[in-house]
């Protein structure tokens, strides 16, 4: 009886562990692809740890732009940014070029990666959401 209980508990734990690893893995497939996009198009300026360059290229760590509404964030990727806009009270000098040449899926992946890495814990971005923002203008 006791043995069965133990097996039961172990199985239960295993299932829980499997479920736990499975959940990030599901979101991970987009984030994993997003990491590749990040390394190719974003890393040079925003850096390997998302910390940016002080007063030059903004950080992606826990900033309101990254964690906030998805539409302005998607627009930054699509249209770039060259206005003198303070980001969390700090000014950044370099221009960001538009990345509208990236596919909806690639933008969704890279934003999902950025929003779930560097200490960020925000929801995933879907290709449909990118498509909707792109079609607005």
């Amino acid at each position, binding site marked *: 009886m006791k043995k069965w209980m133990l097996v039961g508990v172990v199985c239960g734990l295993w299932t829980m562990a499997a479920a736990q690893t499975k959940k990030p893995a599901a979101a991970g497939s987009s984030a994993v692809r997003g990491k590749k996009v990040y390394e190719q*198009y974003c*890393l*040079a*300026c925003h*850096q*390997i*740890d998302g*910390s*940016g*360059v*002080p*007063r*030059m*290229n903004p*950080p992606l760590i826990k900033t309101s732009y990254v964690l906030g509404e998805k539409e302005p964030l998607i627009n930054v990727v699509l249209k*770039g940014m*060259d206005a*003198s806009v303070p980001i969390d009270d700090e*000014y*950044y*000098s*370099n*221009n*960001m*070029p*538009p990345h509208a040449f990236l596919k909806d899926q690639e933008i969704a992946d890279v934003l999902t990666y950025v929003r779930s890495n560097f200490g960020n814990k925000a929801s995933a971005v879907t290709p449909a959401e990118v498509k909707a923002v792109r079609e607005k203008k």
Partner: protein
Amino acid sequence: MRTKMILLGCVSLLGLLSVQCFADHKTKDSSNHAKVDPGNAGLTLPAGFHAQAIAENLGAARHIAVTPKGDIYVKISSGKPGNAIAVLHDDNGKMDVKTFGTYRGTGIAIKDGYLYASSDEDVFRYKLDDQFQVINKDQPEKIITGLINRRQHESKSIALDNDGNIYVNIGAYSNSCQVQDRAKGSKGIPGCPIRDSAAGIWQFRADKANQTYGDGSKFATGLRNVVGLDWNNQSNHLFVMQHGRDGLFDMWPEYYSLEQGNELPAECMYKLNKGDDAGWPYIYYDGIQNKKMLAPEYGGDGKKTGGENAIDPVAAFPAHMAPNGLLFYTGNQFPAKYKNGAFIAFHGSWNRQKGQKGYLVAFVPFKDGMPSGKWEVFADGFAGIKDIQSPGQAQHRPCGLAQGPDGSLYVTDDVKGTVYKITYNGK
């Protein structure tokens, strides 16, 4: 009676002890800045040199100037009211810090009884009294105004000659004059229009109010961005350090490998004559082949050379290290080899991949107004960590340089706002 005497004795002993304590405390306080820091404030230096942090937490401490009396003026790039310039005064060993002015910016210099300082659009000057202290902190004279500031390369660094002229850097508001700045594969704009009002050094009069582009003259062009510059009194020339372009690999992977993008182009030192053209954006300088190369935005492919009419640098340094301060050393405190040589404060790279570098102060020996040997690392360890991956990890980044009246070297850091004083005693 006996008890009373013992008590009295104890009380006086206590009194003596407390006086002793007080005295100890006082000496400790006053020697705080005079004592040599055995840890050299975290820096590594050649044998016989010592460093101490004489001020900390000033904010984004950019360029620095020291008066003949030893007072230190530091330009703080901050928009905070009353925080444009910090004055450091050594009050019997205790560093007294005051601030004044409200404008961002980098440049600061002292010349012929005036303190000059720049915002990212204007240059101001403040009259000094016979103790070299600013007379009216609230009403500087605006000598230059309306210089272009489009965020990128905004620093209006300054230097003065001995004929009443002031030289101002106006950096290009672009990386390489592309149609779409920093976009992959975007071509260069033909006849780059940025060079009309930026990407060069402008010359103005040091004593005339409200000058703008029409009142000055373009002294040298084709310089992408100069933060560190200094007048060399030996050769009577302006020397500048250019920040070389970014993104050869990121934007042109068909021509450059990641390693080439990391190591190209060189950060260059130029000796300027009026009318010189250093070639930006049409060319960049390859410090490995020692050649001027055609930029990929203008038809280059990593192999084609260019810039037949562009001047050559007088010294080339590793890529992306961001030279922010230049100082010709004329003091007598340091060993003879340093006399008239150039110290360069490198801010440290960000546009490299798989490891950043260059958070250091370098030295280049000079003879008769030209470099006479290879550059070397003079002061290192500012970043505070090994294998630095991103500039945000750096605890300190060197920015400005100045020489004190006793020949000491001062270095600013614009991360935490530390001011380092470097001295030599041979021990």
